[in-house]
C-alpha cells in the first residue's frame, strides 16, 4: 500500500477499485502510530475512522453515489470545530471543550465523504509560527525533527508532509498555512478573504484570517478549494465565488503574465539560500513565458508591526469570552469575586497568549490607540491601496514564503522580535485580503524552501494555475522520515 500519493491519485485508486478505503485508512493509522511519536503532528486521533471507512467502501461497492473525497483521510487543525469532538486550540483552557456543532468546512467535507483522521497540533489559539507555543508540546519538522515545522498550522503541514494523512485544513491569519507549508515542503493555500467560511473556526483575528488547505500538490489544493469554498449564511464575510471550478484549466500556464518581484521581501534579512531559490524561481517563471520585474511596496516594512497591533487587539476582544464560565475547565467558583475568578482561571493561558492579550488591551486603549491601533489600521489601508495599484500593472506577485530556512526548536522562542521578522513575507496577503500560495520549491541542506505567489482578490483560479506551472518546474526529493 503506497501512502505517498496525492489526493487526486487517492480518489482515482479508490474509484478504480485498486485500493479500499479501509485498507488505506488503516495503513494511515499505522503510519501515525509509527511516526507521530517523533513528529507530534496530532493532538488526537479519531477512534471511529475505520467504521467510517467501511461505510464508504460499502457505498463504493454497492454503486451508491459517493462524495468527491471517497473516504480520504484528512487532518484538521484543532481550532476548527468537529461536532462531538474535542477542539482544544492547543490550549489548557479548552482542554475538555467538546464542539457542539460542525464548522461549515467540516459539514462540506462530510457531505463529500471525507474521513477525519485526527486533530492537528498548532500554536495555542493559532498565535505563533513554530507550534512551540502549543500547550501540548511542539511538533517536529518531518525533514529534521530537531527543527520546527513552522506554524501555527504546523501539525497540519507536518501530517501531510509525513504521509500521516492525504490533506489537511489549517487557518492562516498572518501566514499560518503558508509558513508551515514552506517549512515542511507541502502546498499551503490562503484564499481571497471571504472565499471560505470561517463559521466554526475559533476566532483569533476575524478581520484577516481564513481557513486554507495544505496538500501534497497544487491540484489537490484546487480540489479541496472546490469542496470547501462558497457563500455561507453563517459567515456574512463570505463572498460569492460563483461556484468556480478551481481544478479545471489548472494547466493553462502563465505565458504572457506579468509578475512583480516584491523588493521589500527579498532584502537584507533574506537568507542567501532563500535568495538563490527566489532568483531560480524567477528564472523558471520567465522560462514559462512570464515577464518578471522588481516592484516596491513601501508599506511592507511596517506591515509586521501593523499586523501584530491589529491581531493582538482582535485577540484581546475574542479571547475575552474565556471566563471559564461559558468555556473552560473544572475550577470551582466558590470563594471568588467575579473579576479575580476570571483572572485566576486565565492562568491556564500559555505565555504567548497571555502576552498578546496584554498587548491587545494596551494598543487600542485610551491614550494609546492613536499611536498604535489607529496607525496600524492606516498602514493596512495604505498597504491595501499600494497592492491594488500594483495589481493594475501586474497579474501576480512573487516572493519567498519565509525569508529564512526552518530553524531549530528553541532557537527563537525567547525572542519575540526575531519571530516577528519571520512573518514579513506572509502578512501582506492577510492585511490586504489577497489570495496567496506557498509552493514547495527547493531543498537546501536538507531543509525546505517554499515560494510564494500572490494574486489580486478573486483571482484564485489564476493563482492556482500559476502555482501549478511553478510546481511543474521542480523535482524535489522525498521527505526522509
Amino acid at each position: 500500500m503506497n501512502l505517498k500519493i496525492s489526493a487526486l491519485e487517492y480518489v482515482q485508486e479508490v474509484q478504480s477499485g485498486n485500493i479500499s478505503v479501509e485498507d488505506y485508512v488503516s495503513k494511515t493509522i499505522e503510519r501515525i502510530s509509527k511516526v507521530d511519536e517523533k513528529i507530534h503532528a496530532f493532538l488526537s486521533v479519531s477512534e471511529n475512522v475505520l467504521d467510517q471507512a467501511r461505510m464508504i467502501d460499502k457505498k463504493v461497492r454497492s454503486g451508491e453515489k459517493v462524495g468527491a473525497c471517497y473516504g480520504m483521510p484528512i487532518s484538521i487543525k484543532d481550532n476548527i470545530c468537529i461536532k462531538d469532538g474535542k477542539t482544544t486550540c492547543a490550549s489548557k483552557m479548552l482542554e475538555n471543550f467538546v464542539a457542539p456543532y460542525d464548522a461549515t468546512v467540516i459539514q462540506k467535507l462530510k457531505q463529500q465523504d471525507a474521513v477525519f483522521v485526527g486533530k492537528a497540533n498548532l500554536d495555542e489559539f493559532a498565535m505563533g509560527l513554530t507550534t512551540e507555543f502549543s500547550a501540548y508540546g511542539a511538533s517536529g519538522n518531518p525533514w529534521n525533527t530537531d527543527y520546527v515545522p513552522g506554524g501555527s498550522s504546523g501539525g497540519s503541514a507536518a501530517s501531510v508532509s509525513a504521509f500521516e494523512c492525504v490533506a489537511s485544513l489549517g487557518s492562516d491569519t498572518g501566514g499560518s498555512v503558508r509558513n508551515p507549508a514552506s517549512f515542511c515542503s507541502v502546498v499551503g493555500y490562503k484564499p481571497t478573504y471571504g472565499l471560505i467560511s470561517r463559521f466554526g473556526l475559533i476566532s483569533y483575528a476575524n478581520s484577516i484570517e481564513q481557513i486554507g488547505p495544505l496538500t501534497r500538490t497544487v491540484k489537490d489544493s484546487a480540489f479541496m478549494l472546490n469542496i470547501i469554498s462558497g457563500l455561507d449564511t453563517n459567515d456574512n464575510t463570505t463572498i460569492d465565488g460563483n461556484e468556480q471550478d478551481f481544478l479545471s484549466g489548472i494547466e493553462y500556464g502563465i505565458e504572457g503574465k506579468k509578475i512583480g518581484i516584491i523588493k521589500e521581501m527579498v532584502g537584507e534579512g533574506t537568507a542567501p539560500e532563500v535568495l538563490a531559490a527566489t532568483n531560480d524561481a524567477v528564472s523558471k517563471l520567465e522560462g514559462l513565458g512570464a515577464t518578471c520585474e522588481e516592484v516596491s511596496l513601501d508599506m511592507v516594512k511596517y506591515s509586521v508591526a501593523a499586523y501584530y497591533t491589529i491581531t493582538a487587539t482582535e485577540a484581546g476582544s475574542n479571547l475575552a469570552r474565556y471566563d471559564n464560565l461559558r468555556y473552560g475547565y473544572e475550577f470551582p467558583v466558590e470563594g471568588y469575586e467575579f473579576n479575580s475568578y476570571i483572572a485566576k482561571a486565565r492562568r491556564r493561558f500559555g505565555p504567548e497568549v497571555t502576552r498578546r492579550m496584554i498587548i491587545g488591551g494596551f494598543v487600542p486603549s485610551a491614550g494609546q490607540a492613536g499611536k498604535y491601533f489607529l496607525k496600524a489600521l492606516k498602514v493596512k489601508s495604505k498597504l491595501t491601496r499600494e497592492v491594488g495599484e500594483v495589481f493594475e500593472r501586474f497579474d501576480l506577485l512573487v516572493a519567498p514564503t519565509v525569508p529564512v530556512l526552518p530553524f531549530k526548536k528553541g532557537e527563537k522562542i525567547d525572542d519575540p522580535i526575531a519571530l516577528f521578522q519571520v512573518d514579513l513575507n506572509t502578512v501582506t496577503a492577510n492585511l490586504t485580503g489577497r489570495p496567496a500560495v506557498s509552493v514547495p520549491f527547493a531543498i537546501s541542506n536538507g531543509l525546505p524552501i517554499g515560494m510564494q505567489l500572490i494574486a489580486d482578490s478573486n483571482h484564485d483560479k489564476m493563482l492556482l494555475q500559476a502555482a501549478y506551472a511553478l510546481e511543474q518546474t521542480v523535482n524535489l526529493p522525498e521527505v526522509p522520515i
Partner: protein
Amino acid sequence: MVAAEEIERVSKLMRIDVDDHREYVDKVQSMIEFFDVLDSAGVESEEISMQEIPISNLRNDEHVPFDGKLIEKLNHYKGTYVRAPKMSS
C-alpha cells in the same frame, strides 16, 4: 519605553493574573517598542478604509433549532441555574 506599571495596569484591566510579572513586562515592552516603527510610516493623513458588508449578507433573523441543550455543557450548570462567582459590591 512603556512603563512597567502601565503594562501591569493593563494586565489587571484585561483580568489576567500572572505569577512572574517581570517575565511578561520585559517581553511585552520589547514587543510594544517594536510597534514604534509605525511612527515613521507617514500615514497620519491616511483614511482608514473598512470592509463594507451589505445588509443583504446578513442571515435571516429566524429561529434555527438546535438538537441539544447547550446550557448543560456548562461546568457550573446546576440543573436550574448557573453558579457564578459573586459580583463586586
